[in-house]
Every structure is written in C-alpha cells, then in structure tokens.
C-alpha cells in the first residue's frame, strides 16, 4: 500500500509520459541557477525560440521542450538527464561548462540518446569516443578569432590571463601556440577559478610584462574582476580582449563603466542586423518571446535547438529514432545556420566552427573582425581605463 502510494506521488511529481504521435519531446538540461545561470538563461531563451520557430514552420511535427535546471552542478545535470529520459525525451539539448556537459553527455550516451550543446569547448569532450555527443562550438574557433584580430591589429606582445579550468586552459594553450609560432611574446598568467582579486596579477603585468595587449580566457565574473583591477592599476596596454560571454549587451548593461572598447567573441553585432529570411524569422520570434534584442548565447541556443529538432523529426519520419537515426541525420549533411555552415565529424565536433570578434563601442557591440563581416572599424588603441 505504502509502496503504491509512493509510486503514485512520484508518478505525479515526475509527470511520466511518452511522446504523442507528432509531438516530439526534447529534454533541455540547463543551468538556470548557480554559477553558470547567466549563460544558461541566455542559451535557454534561444532554445525556446527554436521550439517556437520549429512549431510554426515545420508543418508536420511539433516539439515540446521540457527544461530542468541543473543548478550548475554535475550530479544534478546527470539526474536531470535521467529525469528527462523518464519523461519521454527523445534527445537532449542544453548544458553550459565542460565540467557539467561531460557527465551529462556520458549519461545521455548510456541511454543511447543524442546530446547537443554549444556550451562546452574542452577538446576532451569530443575525444571520449561517444557516438551521441554533438556540439556546435569548440576551443579552436575561439582561439583563431582572438589570434585573427591580434594579427589585424598587429599586436606583438601579450599577457594571457586564463582560468585553469579545462576549457579555458585549452583555449589559452592554443593561443599561446599560435602566437609563439608567429614569433610574438606571450606571458601566461593562469589563475584559480575561485580567485576574485586580480590586482596582484595586473600589477605584475603593468610592471614586468608591459604587453601591447591583455588577453583573457575566463568567465563573466573573471572578466569583471580583471578589468576592475586594470582600471585601478592602469597598465599601458593598447587593447584588452577576451572570449565568450564578454561582448554581450548584458555585460554592457550590468557593467557600462568597465566594458567600453573591450573586445570579445560574438557571432552577430548588437543592435543586431538581420539580413537573411532565417535571421529575420529568428529575430522577430526572439523579440516577441523575450521583448529584447538577441545576444550570442541566444543565437547559439537557437542553432543547437533547431539542428536537434530537425534531426529528431527526420529520424522520427524514417522510423530510426531508436537505431541511431538522430545522430545519422546530424552527421550526414552540412547544415546552414545563423552561425554559418555546421558540419559534424565522427566525434560530434563542428569542424566548420569559426567565430567573429566584436568590440563594445558606447553601448553597441560592433563586429570588427573578420573584415568581410565587420560592421564598424575597430577602435585602436583603446582600453576601458
């Protein structure tokens, strides 16, 4: 009796159920609270827009996205995947941070279902031999973008400040290799992820390194700490640049006194300029749902979501959902997306991933590299202090 009661309560709370004939259930495991919440919420907005666009344009199928907050914790992410599976999810999307994506995608592999993300760039993620792991971004794309901009600006010496986490350390290592091969001077400053006071590092950079540019590979709180310390110590650099989560309208909105002239990776400018029909469809749906301009996290969330929904629908139609049809649909062709062509290799990596560099310019995020995509001239030399 007690066991029956418990199972009934659990069934109610878990909302167990299977997919309807034409409604495809997709699980989204994403950090909505905890340290990665800001990025997770941005990605989640994009995934929700992808679901809306798919449901309005597919004509045959609809998707239902069930979202579970992984609280930025690896164990909760694994539990989220298992819960989504119990709720009938046919595939999974979401995830931010290689440390969380690693165990979550392992869990998805055990269940034999595809896991698609844009939030983890550590190379090891795609070297585990998983058949169901896919991602649209990777470390190489970020490193090449920073290196490309620094070539254009003809920068010759760098202080490279990076978090010792897997993905950040990897991008930093790639950058060091590229710059060293080009005969440029690079001084490394790895830091523990728990560090909040960067003044000692900036002091060393100002007095010892004296670089032309400061490069940062970390996360939002790290960038804020580094730039704050730089504003106090005012090192004599010509430029300061970083990777993800930096050239975003949200960062300007939250820290306008720190962001002006800072470079970061971004697929689109802000205010966004949408030219193709697909871009315009996305932008209109995004504004309608979230009442704001999309940022790059939303764009990545949209792209990863839409790619997955289309692949699941294709496998559903072919009757191959349970025999690897979703991963086959993702691998077999090139996909035209908002971030360019996406081509997945055997390991699930997007071999075509390339990023652009943008600069905060008085509240706008202007694309400044590569030249053919630029929406404004780079302000150089220019730093926030």
């Amino acid at each position: 009796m007690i066991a029956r009661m418990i199972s009934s309560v659990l069934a109610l709370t878990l909302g167990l159920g299977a997919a309807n004939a034409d409604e495809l259930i997709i699980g989204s495991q994403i950090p909505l609270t905890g340290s990665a919440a800001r990025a997770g919420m941005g990605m989640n907005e994009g995934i929700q827009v992808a679901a809306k666009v798919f449901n309005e344009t597919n004509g045959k199928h609809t998707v239902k996205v069930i979202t579970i907050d992984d609280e930025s914790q690896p164990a909760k992410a694994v539990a989220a995947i298992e819960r989504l599976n119990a709720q009938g999810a046919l595939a999974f999307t979401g995830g931010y941070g290689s440390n969380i994506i690693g165990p979550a995608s392992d869990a998805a592999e055990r269940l034999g279902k595809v896991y698609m993300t844009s939030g983890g760039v550590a190379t090891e993620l795609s070297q585990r031999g998983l058949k169901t792991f896919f991602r649209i971004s990777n470390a190489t794309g970020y490193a090449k973008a920073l290196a490309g901009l620094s070539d254009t600006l003809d920068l010759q010496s760098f202080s490279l400040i990076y978090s010792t986490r897997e993905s950040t350390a990897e991008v930093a290592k790639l950058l060091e290799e590229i710059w060293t091969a080009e005969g440029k001077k690079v001084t490394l400053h790895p830091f523990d992820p728990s560090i909040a006071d960067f003044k000692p590092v900036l002091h060393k950079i100002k007095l010892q390194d004296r670089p032309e540019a400061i490069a940062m590979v970390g996360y939002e709180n790290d960038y804020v700490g580094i730039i704050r310390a730089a504003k106090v110590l005012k090192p004599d650099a010509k430029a300061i640049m970083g990777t993800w989560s930096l050239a975003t309208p949200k960062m300007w909105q939250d820290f306008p006194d720190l962001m002006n002239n800072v470079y970061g990776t971004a697929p689109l400018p802000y205010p966004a300029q949408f030219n193709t029909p697909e871009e315009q469809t996305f932008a209109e749906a995004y504004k309608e749902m979230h009442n704001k301009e999309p940022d790059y996290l939303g764009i990545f969330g949209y792209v990863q979501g839409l790619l997955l929904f289309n692949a699941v629908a294709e496998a559903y139609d072919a009757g191959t959902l349970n025999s690897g049809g979703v991963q086959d649909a993702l691998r077999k062709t090139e996909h035209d997306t908002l971030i360019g062509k996406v081509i997945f290799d055997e390991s699930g990596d997007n071999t075509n991933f390339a990023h652009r560099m943008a600069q905060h310019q008085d509240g706008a995020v202007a694309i400044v590299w590569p030249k053919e995509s630029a929406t404004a001239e780079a302000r150089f030399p220019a730093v926030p202090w």
Partner: protein
Amino acid sequence: MMKYLSLIIILAGAYLAVPLQFGGNDYVIGIVVSALTIAGIAVAWAMLGNLGGMISFGHSAFFGVGAYGSALLAMNAGLPVFPSILAGGVIAGVVSILTMPTLRLRGPYFALAMLAFAEIFRILAIEMRWLTNGSGGLLSIPRLPTVFGFDFGSRLGGYFVVLTLVLLTVFVYWLIRNRPEGLALRAMHDSEDATLVVGVNATRLKAAVLVVSAFLTGIMGAFNAHYINFLEPDYAFNGSWTTLAIVAAIFGGYKTLWGPVAGALIVYLVDQFVFKAIMPSGHQLILGGLLAAIVIFSPSGLLPWLASRFRKEAGDAAHP
C-alpha cells in the same frame, strides 16, 4: 525481538521492494543513490561528532581525497574498480593523520581547522596538475564493473553498492559504539576532562575514530567518482558534501545510529521529488524552513522526536 524484525523489514524493503518498484526508472534510482551517498557521509560525520564530540566542517576533504585516490588508481595504475574504492578509503584514512594536530583543538576551533584542511586539499588538487589534471578535472573515470553478469555500473547496480556501503558504515558505527572504547568516546563527548581523570587515553581514541570516519567518508567519495565518472576539485572538495551531511545528521538525530541515514533520505528525497516539483528554482528555501522548524521544535532531531512520541502514545494506551 521487535528491533530485529524492524531491521529485517527495512533491509528487505531496501534490497527488494525499492528495486522492484523503481528499478526501471533511472532517475528515481539516481536520486536515491545521491541520498544514500549523503547518508554514508552523514553517518561517518555523526560518528566523529557523537563519539568524541568532534564537530567537523571539513569532511569534504576526506570525500575528495577518497574520490581522487580511487579514480587515479583505476585510471593510471589500472587497479580494478572495487579494490580502488577500498584503496580510496584507505588513502583518506591515511591522509586524516595529517589533520591530527587539530585534535588539540575543541569546539569551533576544531571545526574551523578542519574546514581549512578541506580548502588545503582542494588547492592541492588544483595545483598538482601532473597528477589530477588540475581544475580541468578527470573525465571518463572507469565505471563500476560487471560481475557475474550483473552490471554494477548501471543505476540499479550503483544503488546496491551504495546501499551496502551505507549499511556497512552503520554496522562499523554500531560496533564501535558498543565497545568499551565507544562508551569512553561518548563520555568524552559530554566531558573530556572527566574521562581523562578516570584514565582514558582521549587523544588516542579521538585519533582512531577520526581515521575510521575519514576512511568511511573516503569510501563514499570513491564510490561517487566511479558512479558519476567525473571529478574536478571544486566538485570533489565542495563544502556541500559536508554541509548536506551535517544537515541530514542533525535533522535525523546525530546521536542516534539511524538518524543520519533517515535524515539524509528524508531531506534529499523530499527536496528533489516534492519541493523541486513545486518550485523548480529556489526549492532549497522550503527545505531551509523545514530544517529551521525541526531544529527549533526538536533539537535532538527527527528520530528521537518520533521515538518520544511513540513512547508517549504507547504509555497513554497502557494507562488510559
């Protein structure tokens, strides 16, 4: 007799009813495994707190050391997973010897010193990149193996392993508690000076129980590493491994044998299955309120409160 019958019913329920009812649902079993992991740490923590009166804020150190020890032995030395888990516990026990200078301290000073040790081990795990891969952590840690055709790497297999580990932890606690040394340790909890007067070697006993508690916590950490197949310093040495265990032990009644287990199961399962369903984000608020209520209305914990209610009702029935 009634006591043993209850125990047999609980064991039968744990080994048979739960797998039969929920074995097909990885999510439910996964959450139960997480709750049992907390339960194992909570018992080991309560052992140190109840026997010897040492309130530790740093058990995450032993959890993390056990986890890293086992994972590295399995990945780099090729040791099979089950012996690695045992070795992880042994390593945590050995490492606890480094913390023994803290035995000179009492009360909040001991608690804070242990917290400092947990931070030291976390930083060591970050800095010893050649061994631990630093903040990058370890991915694809070997899973629990398949033995005689049964896959212990499955969620259900993990459940049986962690359940057995928790029961063994409780058994060790029971053994120590019922020995003369256990009596001396419990007396030390109330007045260490009084036990010194009657000739108890307090330092030796406290050191021994610290090693045992660290070993048992290390075993739970080692299991977790092979269960979740991933480690990084912030995860392995996270303070929540200690705070959740303390919350569970105090909620259930840390001076009782089964209180920490009951506390962990109730706190974790109710939070994940009920509160999180009601409030997907910020559900810990409800849990916090519930814990505050328990601490205010029954400082000795849930099980002692239930036992006193049961005795009162039995007394009322016998003497209407």
